Each structure stands twice: as C-alpha cells, then as structure tokens.
C-alpha cells in the first residue's frame, strides 16, 4: 500500500506497522499536528482533510499524528471525549472513502472485518449490516433489499456502514494504557484539555420516573448510555418533552450528553419543533418506528403520564 492510503486510513494494520519502523524527524511539528487533530475532533466534531499536495514526509506526519492523538485522547480519561474523537476520525475516513477507488475502500472494509461483494450493488452480510447501520428509519432492515443473507447497498450507503465500523473500532481500542507515555505528550494533553469544551454533565430530569411512558423512559436511558440515538427517536423524545412542559433550553441540555451532540443543530431543531407545535407521535406511530416497548393501553405516550409539572393529564384523541 502507498503512504497516501495509510495517511487517509491511519487505523489500519499497515499504518501501525509503518509507524513502528518509520521515523518522524520533526517531533515539534508532529506534536502540533496531533494537538490540532484532537482539538478539532472534540471541539468542532470534525478533522479537516489534508491538503492534496503533501509530500511523503508530510504524509508520514499525518499517520504519526494519529498515533499521538490516540495517546492524547487516552490521557483525557473520558469516555465522552473518546466517543467524540472516534466519531470525528470516522467522518474523516468516510470523506476519503467517498472519493477513493473501490479497491481501496474494499481494503479498508477487509481491515474492519466487513466482507463485501460488488456486482450491481455493494452487498454485506445482514449481521454486519445490523452491527454498523445507522439507527434510523431509512436504514431499517425491513426497508432494505435483503437476499440470501446479504443486504444490497449503494456505494454511499456502504461507505456510511464502514464509517460506523471505523468509529466502533477506534472506540474499542481506546483508551490506551497511559503509563509510560512521554512527558511531552502529557503536556500536550493538558494543553488540549484547556482548549476543548467541558464534558457535559448528565442532566437529571426533574420528573418522577414512574410518570414517563415506558417508551420515553427507554429513550432517556438510551440517551444516557451514549448509544447514538436515531433521528426519529430523538425527535420523538424532544417533542414529548416539549409537550409535557419542558422548556427548549432544558430539552437541548438533555441532549447535550450525547457524544455526537451539536448544540446549534439541536437547538434549531428543538426550537423548530416548539414553534410548529409538533405533537408527540401516537402509540401507533411509535410502534411503526419500532420505538414502542410496551402495551400500555393508551393511544399516545402523553396519555400515560399523570399530573406532571403540576398540570392535569393531557387530553388526547
């Protein structure tokens, strides 16, 4: 493989091997790039792509900066930061795969343990698909072409699956053991810590657990356990919270613990939902999204609650 491949996909085995033999000359520059990488990943949720005219030594620096970044992230000692970092790394790789050759994309896939066949479609086993597909309505298995155990995907969808696989791989490999990490990297980590936003504190929802509809209770749990909730699920939860009388700010804060949280997007969406006066989806709709978890004998999750926030139970049709 070429150096440019490893610079795009520094989590591959080949890249690791390369790093164990290659030598970076400018340690100072390397540290700078690595710090940027982590700050961008955690702070902005995005690592800028490399310029196209990098020479070999600069490409090597890129690969090396990934290795150093992982040490820095490990030193931050936070699951939340690890998740956020992994998401940004995965997005970066995904952008490269989108325009890379099939051959290279398949190499990455193989590396991730996702085995793919290409004819008219890019097809993956349903097991891999279920492990890595985004949890949203259009990626629901039922809406997919599934034949002989294989899910047929367009190229961009296949890349999306690989993005998730990259994310999970990076997440599962972190944190690294931090004993013996050189002092300059420890210093870098402290610098990074000062330039990234604070880890959000979980919001205690000021409501008795028993008052929530079971489906919403489940969504709240999922939110806390940092599973990346699907868009539909977030939307349903947000609208529900608004409908039971929570303020926009509180709802936004509720979502801030999610590692792929983007404050401005979330705020926009929640405000939009509040302005439009969206109604909580009915139990039938919740069911069709696969979000209903019980059989409460009500028509809407709203009907489940009693006297929350000092109001009388909501009326529903």
């Amino acid at each position, binding site marked *: 493989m070429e150096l440019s491949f490893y610079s795009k996909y520094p989590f591959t085995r080949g890249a690791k091997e390369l790093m164990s033999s290659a030598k970076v000359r400018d340690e100072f520059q390397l540290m700078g790039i690595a710090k940027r990488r982590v700050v961008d990943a955690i702070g902005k949720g995005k690592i800028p792509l490399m310029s196209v005219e990098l020479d070999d030594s600069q490409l090597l620096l890129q690969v090396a900066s990934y290795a150093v970044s992982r040490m820095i992230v490990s030193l931050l000692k936070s699951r939340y930061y690890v998740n956020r970092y992994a998401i940004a790394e995965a997005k970066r790789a995904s952008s490269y795969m989108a325009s890379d050759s099939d051959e290279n994309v398949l190499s990455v896939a193989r590396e991730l343990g996702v085995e793919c066949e290409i004819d008219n479609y890019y097809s993956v086993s349903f097991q891999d698909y279920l492990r890595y597909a985004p949890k949203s*309505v*259009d990626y629901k298995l039922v809406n997919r072409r599934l034949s002989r155990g294989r899910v047929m995907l367009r190229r961009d969808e296949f890349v999306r699956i690989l993005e998730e696989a990259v994310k999970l791989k990076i997440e599962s490999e972190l944190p690294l053991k931090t004993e013996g990490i050189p002092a300059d990297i420890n210093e870098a980590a402290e610098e990074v810590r000062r330039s990234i936003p604070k880890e959000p504190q979980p919001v205690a929802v000021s409501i008795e657990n028993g008052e929530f509809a079971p489906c919403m209770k489940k969504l709240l749990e999922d939110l806390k356990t940092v599973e990346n909730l699907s868009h539909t699920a977030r939307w349903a939860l947000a609208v529900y919270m608004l409908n039971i009388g929570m303020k926009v700010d509180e709802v936004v804060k509720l979502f801030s613990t999610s590692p792929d949280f983007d404050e401005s997007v979330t705020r926009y969406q929640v405000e939009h939902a509040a302005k439009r006066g969206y109604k909580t989806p009915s139990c039938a709709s919740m069911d069709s999204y696969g979000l209903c978890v019980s059989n409460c004998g009500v028509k809407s999750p709203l009907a489940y609650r009693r006297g929350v926030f000092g109001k009388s139970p909501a009326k529903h049709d």
Partner: protein
Amino acid sequence: MTNPEEMYVRSKFREHYEKAEVQAPGEIEKREWGVGGWERKIEARHMRMANPQELGGRLVMDAPLFISYSVAYYEFPDMRPMERKNWLGADLVFDLDADHLELPCKNRHGSKWVCEECLNAVKDESIKLIEQFLIPDFGFSKKEIGLNFSGNRGYHIHVTDKSVRELRAYARREIVDYLTGTGIDFNSMGFEWVPVPGRRESKLLGPAPTDPAWQGRIAQLVSKLVSERKLEEVGVSERDARRVYKKSEQFLTSIRSGKWDAVKLDKKELFWRDVVGKLGVKLGDRIDQNVTADASKLIRLPDSLHGESAMLAKKISSIDRFDPLKDAVVFGKQPVRIKIKKAPEFRLGEQTFGPFKDEEKELPEYAALFLLCKKEAVLWKS
C-alpha cells in the same frame, strides 16, 4: 408436592424420561436452566448443567413439569444477577403461538384450549417464517434451522448458526421488525410517482415480483390477488378492483416491469396496512415481540414434556406431515379414571373426546393426563 394429581403426572413424566432419549442443546455447560412445576412454568432458574448426562439424570430424578434453557450462552450460567453471568452470545429463537394470531376461534375456546383451526394457522405461520423469510431473505440453510412443537399451541424455531450468536438486542429487534413488517416504508419499497413528460399527471412506479425481499413479496402478493380476483382483501374498492380485473393480463404484465399505474391506490394507507399485515409473520403484540428479541429468555427444551398438556415439545423433521395432536402424544392407552370439571370437545391421537361437564370418566392415559394437566380434571378415587 401436595396434591395427588401433580404426583401422578410427575410419576408418568418420570416413566417417560426413563426410556426416552432427550438430546441436550449445544454447549449445554454454557446454558442457564429453569424448571417448572404445578404452579408455575418456571419455579427455579439460574441453574447450570455440566453435561448431557446430568440433564438426563435430572429429568428422571426431578421429572420436572416444564424444563427450559437459555437461548443465551454464558460464561457463568448459574451466577446471579444476570450481569454476572457474562453473556457470550445467543441463538436466534422464534416462538410462534396460536394465541398470538387472534383468530376468531379464540372467542370460542379461549387461550387454554386449541382447535384444529388455530393449530393449522400457527403451522402455516411457521412455514411462512422459515420458507419465505429465514431461507430466502436471511440466507439460512434448512440444516441451521431447528423446528419443534411447543408442546401446547405453537412452534419454536431455533437458528443456532454461529453467525447469529453475537447479535445484540438492537439487531434482534430489527430482525423481528423485518419479519413483522414493522416500520416498513412505502417509498423504500420502490414506490414512486414520476411525472409524465408533457402532461399534468404522474404515474406510479413500484416493485416487480422478481425483486428480492419485501419489494418482491409485495409485488407477488398483489399479482396473485389480481389473478385470483381478491384485490378487495387489501382494501381496494370493489369498483376499482373490477376495473383492474377487466385488464388483468395487461396489469400483470406491467407489474412485472414495475409499473403500478393500473392499481388505483386511492386508499393508500389502507392498502398498505392490509398488504403488510397479510405478508408479515405474526409474532404477537409488542411485548411478545420484545420477548422474541430477548437474548436472555428461557425456551422449552425440545423433546421435553409440557406440563399443561402432557404432550411432547417434539422435534419436527417434516412440518407438512406433522400433526401435533397425534405426533406429540406419547402416553399410553390404558384406562385412567378421572373426574372432569369441564372440557370442550377435543381430539387427541385418532380419537375425539368430550365435551365434558362434571362427569366421571375412564379415558386413555394420554387423554386423562391431558385433562389433569389442563387442571380441568382430578383423579377419581372410589
């Protein structure tokens, strides 16, 4: 053990287990076991069995009225709470129950009893699950799919292939949604209104019968309903249906190339609900479905006895010819005297019994045990 009925049933179960060969599930040492008695189907759980011999011994010694094991594999199956067992993976097991089908006959006989009608329906449902979903869509081979009668009113389907073991709760839920058609989306099925160039109208494109998965299944069903003149079953109005039938040849040809214009989908929602409802596998309500997706549930040991029927949860090699009311009956014919409270007419083996109400009877052992297990009879001591 206080009541004579339970003692009698247990002694008969013991006799059966003394001569029967019950095969242990794969990797028995990693399974959690549960046994049940007269009051409850699971009275004790969190048990471990080291090997098939231990299981064989337990069956004879304890003669449990119910015995089930975890679909999951654990490092420490006898530890508790659950988290300490250390989940290693799980089989994919589906539980199809006549009670979940909500058939009209249920109003007649309730959940306690079954009739030929619901047993046939749940059998068709099992065949559908295997032959229209697990094999063509999920790509499992026949030999990876184990099938057994539940012992009472349904079937259990076990997929033990290694490739499904590590599927997490979310993935199992998705599989259930796939089978039941939950969350299916009209547009994702290839339906699309495209404008006709130069005109104000648009025409409907859709899936073709040769498409894979749900797409193909939907096109096949609608084609079939057209040729059998049964479009009304999916909410197409009689008038529109008649219009389609007049040109049914033309319609069938056009659907074969994915052109759906001829079907008038005025009541799209209704059509959609009915089509999906017809095609999906009926796995009960949300709670039942969540149980199906539960990767730590206990499931009846195939070829063990069911304490509510005294019938065998018999393994099945060819479901088409399987008649549960005959093939799952294992006890003998020697007469047993019982006092029957109440029972509707029922068939077991070749013979039909009842209806009974407050009467003393001498029935063949298998039928007497059946009623004792239903708790609609007691031993008759004179």
